[in-house]
C-alpha cells in the first residue's frame, strides 16, 4: 500500500512532493502548500487509494529560522485501512494555507483549532473563528514563544481592565 501511494502521487504530483519519510512504519509525505487541496482531492477521489476519512489536522511550531510552522494532515482510508500523514510547511509573514474544508467537512473545526493555537490562517475556510480562546485574545498559545504561565493581563478578569502589554 505504501508503494502504491508513493507511486500514484509521484505520477500525478511529481514536482509538488518535497520529502517522503518513514518512521516506525508511518508514512509522512511533505508537499508544497499551494497544492494541498489538489493533492487531498486526488487522494480522496482516487478509487484505489480512497482516503475518504480525515482523522485530524494539527499545527506544529518547530521554532526555527526556515519552515517554522507545519500543518499536519492525518488521513485514513476506510477501504484499505491505511494511515497517511501529509505535511505542509508555512512561514511568517505569509501564514496562510489553503483550506481543505471543500474536500472533507471534518476539516472545519480542526482548522479552526490550528488557527486558534498557532495563528495559521486557512484561506477559503467558511468560518475561521477562534474555537477555545476568547474572541479578543491577541496571542497564539501553542507557539513556542508564548510562555507556559500565560501573559499577565491578556485575559481580563471580572472587574479588571484589560492591560495592553508592550512587546519589546
Amino acid at each position, binding site marked *: 500500500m505504501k508503494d502504491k501511494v508513493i507511486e500514484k502521487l509521484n505520477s500525478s504530483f511529481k514536482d509538488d512532493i518535497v520529502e517522503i519519510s518513514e518512521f516506525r512504519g508511518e508514512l509522512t509525505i511533505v508537499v508544497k502548500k499551494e497544492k494541498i487541496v489538489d493533492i487531498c482531492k486526488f487522494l480522496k477521489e482516487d478509487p484505489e487509494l480512497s482516503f475518504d476519512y480525515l*482523522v485530524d489536522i494539527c499545527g506544529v511550531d518547530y521554532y526555527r529560522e526556515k519552515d517554522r510552522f507545519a500543518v499536519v494532515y492525518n488521513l485514513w482510508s476506510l477501504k484499505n485501512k491505511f494511515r497517511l500523514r501529509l505535511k505542509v510547511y508555512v512561514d511568517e509573514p505569509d501564514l496562510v494555507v489553503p483550506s481543505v474544508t471543500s474536500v472533507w467537512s471534518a476539516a472545519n473545526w480542526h482548522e479552526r483549532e490550528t488557527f486558534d493555537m498557532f495563528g495559521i490562517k486557512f484561506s477559503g475556510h467558511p468560518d475561521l473563528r477562534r474555537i477555545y480562546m476568547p474572541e479578543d485574545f491577541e496571542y497564539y498559545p501553542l507557539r513556542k514563544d508564548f510562555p507556559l504561565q500565560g501573559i499577565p493581563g491578556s485575559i481580563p478578569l471580572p472587574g479588571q481592565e484589560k492591560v495592553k502589554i508592550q512587546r519589546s
Partner: protein
Amino acid sequence: MEERMDKIVESLSRRNIEAEVRRDPLGTEMILNVGPQHPATHGVLRLVLKLDGEYIVDAVPELGYLHRGKEKIAENMTFLEFLPHTDRMDYLAPLSNNTAYMLAVEKLFGVEAPKRAQYIRVILNELSRIASHLVWLGTFAMDVGALTVFMWCFREREKILSILDLVTGVRFTTSYARIGGVAQDITDEAIHAIKEFIDNFPKELEQCEKLLNKNRIFIERTDGIGVITKEQAIDIGLSGPNLRAVGVPRDLRKDEPYLVYGELDFDIPVYEEGDCLARYYVRLDEMKESVKIVRQCIEKLPPGPVKADEPKATHPKKEKIYTKMEELIHDFILTNFGGTPPVGEVYHAVENPKGELGFYIVSDGTGYPWRLKVRSPSFTNIQALPLMLKGHMIADLVVIIGSIDPVMGEADK
C-alpha cells in the same frame, strides 16, 4: 419556515378548507442560547440555536469552557509526568486514556510491554468501556425520562470502580499504565472480583434492556431522531459507536489491532439506521462484546513480568534502585530528564469508548515531547451535532446531545 407554511396551506386547500394565511410580519425565528451551565448538555457545552417556533433551524456549538491547555502543559514535562493529565481528559474511562497515551509513547521509544501487561491492559480497557457505556446508558435513559435505568447502571458501574480500586489502588483517576507495562501486577483477589462481575453483569444488563427495549416512550423518543447518513458521517469524521451506528464497521481494535486484540475473538456491532436508537443498540451490544473479551483475557492471562526491562525508557524496580548503582542512575535520569527517545514523529490511536483517541507526538530527542496533539473523539463527534439537530424539535435536543456521548473534558482538552 416558508416551506412548511406552504405545505400546510396546500394540505388545507386539498381538503377544501379555505384558510386565510397571515404570515408573521415580525418573523418567527428566534435565537436561543443553551448552556454552558445547562444540566442536559453533559458538561460545559454551549449551543446557540436558531429556532423556528419549536423547530431547530440551525445550531452552532461553542467550545472552550473547559480548555485547560493540556497540549501546552505536555510540552513542559516529561512523558511519564503527563500521564495523570490523560486521566482528566475523558474522565469516564481514564484507563483507556492511560493506555492510549502509553502506547503512543512506547511506539516512540520502541518499547513493547510484556504479554501479561498487555492482557491486563485489555481487561481494564474493556472494563472501563463498560463503565463508560453504563454512565452513558444511565444518563441517556434519564434524558428521555427513565430514572430507574440510571440507578441500576450506576450501581453496576460502582462495582467496576471497586474492581479498579482493587487493581490500581484508585477508583477514578487511575494513572495505572507505565512506559512498557503497568504500575503493579493484578492480584488473585482482583481476578476473582472481575470473574464475579462478568458472570453477573449480563443478567443485570438484561434487566435494563427489559425496561427500555419495548418501552414505548423510549422508542418513540429515539427512533428516527437525530438521523445522520453514512456519507455525512464519514465526511464529518464521526468515530466510535456513533460511526458504527450508521453502518460503517470501523473499529481500530479490528482494523489496526493493538495490544492483544488480534488474538481475541469478538464481533463489531454495526447498525444501519444512524438514529439515536441505533446508537443505543450499538453501545448495548458493545458492552456484551466487552464481557466476552474480558472473559477470554482472564482465561488466557499468562504469567510473567508486567513491565518491560528497558533501562533507557522505563523506570527500574524499586528494590533494584535501592541496591544497584546502575539502576539508581537510570532512575535519576528518567525522573529528571525523561529518557532519550529518537527524533521523529509518531501517531497512535486506540478505540476508546467514545471513538478514536489518538496521540500525535513530535519528538526532538529530549525527554520532553516537542509537540503533543490529542485527537479527541468527542471533539469531532460534537462537530456533527448541527447535522443531527437540524429539523428536529427542541425537545429532542437533549436526547440527541446525549446520544453522541460527548465528554467536554476531552473535547476541550
